[in-house]
């Protein structure tokens, strides 16, 4: 299969040495060639994503029964979701936390991306590598590091105590929503910068020049040109942060305390101590649907705003 793909894919232009009817078809059609090359990736992702999802959907209509499952199809789990307040509450808390994280990350990363795009002239690549480097290191360890920083005897409290700014350690730093938000924003900052940077870098400098010539000050210029033109970057950065953070369960488990738990923790527990896999499957499906809906609304809203601006 792979060999076939290679053969047909790389020889372009003239007809290949051993072109059967299949080969000729492939040479003639760009589409066929393209899809042949894409086959391994598509087949793999297709099988590894769609099949498990299908089973997940089916399982969400089962019910747990002791060690096994009752495979009669029922909407029991979905009814549970609406009947018991915990699920909805955790879901909305999750979106609240992820939303805060997204806003914080994009706001904090935008100036940094702007700086690299407009004010760094040499070694841009070095800066980009420097910024994205932490993203590739173990997520677990970065969460863990924040525990050390925010802890009761952690770095911040020790520092403030030794300077004499506080008398007793600040307790709200750890085991709170704030701790989860700070940690997640930090963990995803590196990832959010890339789309922001790319969209800022693409802005045609002559537009800025024109605006200046027309008498726009820096602030006006920013809001009239730079910001609207970088909106695609803002959208992708927001989605790249918002969606993955909604499924997180490590950060809330380690730093969230009783009030910082998210829907991911509950999903994970359905597959662990609670041992109710069908409910876990239903919660996963609901989470996915909500994410899709929110993303869609967000994208439409941003596009609408952009149309109004320009």
């Amino acid at each position, binding site marked *: 299969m792979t060999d076939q793909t290679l053969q047909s894919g790389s020889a372009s232009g003239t007809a290949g040495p051993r072109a059967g009817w299949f080969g000729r078809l492939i040479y003639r059609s760009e589409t066929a060639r393209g899809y042949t090359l894409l086959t391994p990736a598509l087949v793999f992702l297709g099988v590894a994503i769609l099949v498990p999802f299908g089973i997940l959907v089916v399982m969400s209509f089962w019910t747990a029964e002791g060690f096994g499952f009752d495979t009669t199809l029922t909407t029991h789990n979905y009814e549970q979701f609406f009947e018991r307040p*915990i699920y909805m509450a955790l879901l909305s808390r999750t979106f609240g936390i992820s939303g805060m994280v997204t806003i914080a990350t994009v706001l904090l990363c935008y100036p940094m991306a702007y700086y690299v795009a407009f004010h760094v002239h040499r070694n841009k690549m070095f800066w980009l590598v420097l910024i994205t480097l932490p993203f590739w290191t173990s997520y677990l360890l970065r969460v863990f590091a924040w525990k050390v920083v925010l802890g009761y005897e952690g770095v911040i409290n020790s520092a403030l105590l030794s300077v004499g700014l506080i008398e007793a350690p600040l307790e709200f730093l750890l*085991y709170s929503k704030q701790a989860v938000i700070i940690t997640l924003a930090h963990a995803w900052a590196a990832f959010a910068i890339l789309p922001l940077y790319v969209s800022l870098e693409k802005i045609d400098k002559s537009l800025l020049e024109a605006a200046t010539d027309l008498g726009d000050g820096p602030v006006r210029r920013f809001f009239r040109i730079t910001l609207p033109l970088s909106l695609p970057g803002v959208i992708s950065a927001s989605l790249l942060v918002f969606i993955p953070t909604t499924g997180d369960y490590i950060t809330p488990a380690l730093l969230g305390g009783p*009030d910082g*738990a998210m829907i991911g923790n509950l999903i994970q*527990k359905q597959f*662990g*101590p609670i*041992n109710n896999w069908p409910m876990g499957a239903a919660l996963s499906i609901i989470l996915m649907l909500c994410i899709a809906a929110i993303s869609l609304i967000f994208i439409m809203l941003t596009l609408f705003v952009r149309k109004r601006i320009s």
Partner: protein
Amino acid sequence: MDITDQLGSMRAGDMSRRAFTKSLLSAGVGVAAVPLAVRKATAAPEDQATFFTWGGYDIPELFVPYNETHGELPNFSIFGGSEEALTKMRGGFVVDVSHPCNSGLPRWVQSGIFQRIDTGRLSNWGDVMPELVNLPGNEADGSSVWLAPFDWGQTSITYRTDMFEVEGEESWDMLWDKRYSGRLGSLASGGDAWWCGAIKAGVPMSEIHTDDAFDKIAAVMREQRPLIRTYTDDTTTLEQALSSGELVAAMTWNSSATLLQSEGVPVKFAKPKEGALTWVCGLMIHKDAPNLDRAYDVIDSLLSVESGKFMINDYGYGHSNSKSFEQFDAETLAGLGLSSNPADILEAGHFQVPQTQEWETKMNTLFEEIKSGF
């Protein structure tokens, strides 16, 4: 630019880079060709038994006899909780020996993935305390058991003697003390916390499955929830917090108090007047254990006096071998919340009564809701 020129330079030059890429790829293919499921090529660890256990039991001190016989330690696989372990094994995960506790015993047996242990094959069996063998669901018939008891202990309160002012007797009320709101900690697993809640609520262990018990326990757990700084399953978190003074009291097992004391932190493992929660954990053999002989060696090693001394001295847990206790005087044992006569402890405390899988799911669902504030 002339294309053929570029092509020429591509062919002539860059040889080194190409060669480099090539050798890199071939090296990679070599490594990738090592089958993932097979362990190191040295092959030796493959023959050893696999012990599926809690973290902290994967240490040489507990396998001195095993190491002497086989020249190596068994393989270890670590789980975070025994429910998680059972789920994994039911999902087709085969080990030689695993490590459940008494409250899970009937459900583990019922899952049908374990075999009975022939006690005649264990050299240390004669010294194992009979009180620990006769557990509900163990079906001990004199020559075989499902579970060979190994460690036992209590779930109680570890508190800072310098920061927590005890009013009257030590009691479970300490973890419901509003004076220390936000400075109390709890284990997150319902397997411990719910049962302690039952003791606090005055529900007898034998009635914990009733609807009335659910209501009563849920009420006390809801009352406690705003006072709790964190629920966690990792004892490190509780111990660190107790050592720093972030928490003044927390629900823990024996080992936390013992470790903190050895670090010089002024803590005490409380003997609540209502009684502590007592438990026994032990070893079970998988029905398809690939190294059955060595599985017995693992169990025998864990039941040995050497292991027992380590368990008592370093972790503060009870051991199932009565001879292990001979090295310690009554005062030391009492300080650890232990006794050379486990009946003393087991009778003074509350012993978990095994429940059905449905009960576990219901209890955990409810407890998760309470922990989240509902």
